[in-house]
């Protein structure tokens, strides 16, 4: 691309934005609104995912071994449990260790005098790869010989998995919907510009301007509007996230939840916002101009 043409495209694109300042402002606002809604749901989905990942790593199924088995026999169950699908690892906890851990949780152990580890069975702490499959894994382990009971916080886990699925579906639907809404608005903004400049475009065609030459200033216009929208929404999303996580939720009794710091997600979010903004700008402008280039 020749230098003078490049500057011509940039200058014409910028001029168009200022000549149609209200519609440009409106399309940036729409992009900002759409990106913030998209971004908020994505951030929510990411946080729910993180909470669930944490729970996956922290929560285990407790597998109680038959009381009649010796410790050696109980230890030999370990490989069988680890062979069950969805089990990431199984940690053997002997009755002595379990009894000691139990006593450690109390400052005054005098009330347990006269009792010993014999009242607690050997057990395994089993960690899963995917808590969504917890129920099936629980059933599979229960069927193993020498297993008396399998205890799992199934209801809580299922609740979180359901929330994650709902948030993911809503996010995907919203992202798709809002992308098309932004595209429509952007396309119409640029269509308005092209409509006002239809005589100019006709003259350009008449004197032999190529379609590429005619198209580029409009694409530049769309790109600039998309980029401005992306940057504004990124900054607003950042502020909003900080406000919600630090002030509102932390102060309203949700302190037990941990949130991903925005800085950790800033670059991917900025990249996605920029990509969506630029994509909406480019596709919108190409859609707007295509009818004028058919001749």
């Amino acid at each position: 691309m020749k230098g003078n043409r490049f500057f011509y495209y940039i200058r014409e694109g910028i001029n168009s934005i200022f000549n149609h300042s209200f519609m440009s402002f409106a399309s940036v606002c729409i992009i900002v609104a759409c990106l913030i809604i998209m971004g908020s749901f994505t951030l929510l989905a990411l946080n729910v995912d993180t909470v669930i990942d944490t729970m996956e790593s922290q929560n285990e199924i407790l597998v109680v071994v038959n009381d009649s088995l010796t410790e050696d026999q109980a230890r030999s169950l370990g490989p069988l449990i680890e062979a069950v699908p969805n089990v990431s690892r199984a940690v053997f906890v002997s009755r002595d260790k379990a009894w000691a851990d139990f006593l450690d949780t109390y400052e005054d152990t005098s009330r347990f005098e006269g009792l010993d580890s014999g009242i607690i069975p050997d057990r395994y702490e089993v960690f899963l790869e995917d808590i969504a499959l917890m129920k099936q894994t629980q059933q599979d382990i229960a069927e193993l010989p020498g297993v008396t009971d399998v205890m799992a916080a199934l209801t809580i886990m299922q609740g979180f998995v359901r929330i994650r699925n709902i948030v993911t579906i809503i996010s995907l639907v919203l992202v798709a919907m809002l992308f098309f809404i932004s595209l429509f608005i952007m396309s119409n903004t640029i269509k308005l510009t092209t409509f006002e400049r239809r005589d100019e475009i006709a003259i350009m065609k008449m004197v032999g301007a190529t379609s590429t030459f005619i198209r580029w200033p409009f694409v530049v216009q769309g790109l600039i509007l998309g980029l401005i929208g992306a940057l504004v929404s990124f900054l607003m999303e950042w502020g909003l996230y900080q406000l919600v996580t630090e002030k509102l939720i932390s102060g309203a009794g949700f302190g037990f939840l941990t949130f991903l710091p925005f800085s950790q997600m800033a670059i991917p979010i900025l990249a996605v916002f920029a990509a969506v903004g630029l994509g909406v700008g480019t596709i919108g402008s190409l859609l707007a101009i295509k009818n004028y280039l058919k001749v």
Partner: protein
Amino acid sequence: MVQFIDVFKSYENGTKALRGVSFKIQDGEFAFLVGPSGSGKTTIIKLLTGEIAPTDGRVLVNDYDLSNIKFSKMPYMRRTLGIVFQDYRLIEDKSVYENVAFAMRVIGASAKEIRRRVPYVLELVGLDTRSRRHPQELSGGEQQRVAIARALVNNPRLIIADEPTGNLDPARSLEIMMLLQKINELGTTVLVVTHEKELVESFSKRVIAIDGGKIISDGMGGYYSYER
């Protein structure tokens, strides 16, 4: 050079605009294309500018065969043409200079070329002193001169003027025709499409007359045979 070889054109609504039109205009010629409304004049212009394609037959313009030209080649074909319309089609928010320079800029001419060529063309059409004016500050005749300058600025091989004097009084019409004749004398082929009898008869040029989508006469002088 322009050549129509047995050209037929039918529109989607069934209108048969051209029925076997053939003619040839040599490089450097000046010709009038005359005919009443609905005779097929506009269809011939649209075929020449590549806005539409013939249904049958061949249209050759400046070494391009428009019957099967690739879409990507069309801009380059149009650069060999200069088109002047009855309604001038100037850009209102650009000055006279900018309107003419615009035609050069959009085909990728350098700033240096534009600075050299535009004043020359404006002087040729007698508007060198009005280059900073905007179209609405000019008379109809002056606006048409700007349109001619714009058509001329890229040094086309053929100028097509579609009813160039349709909005002008007789004195201004004559001026515009004299200007087109001067451009022709400088070597550019000129085709003037009109239905103004007096104007055609005042120039001793080739006249191609069309009616009902057919050429009804083609000869020198103020011949105007379609008159009813």
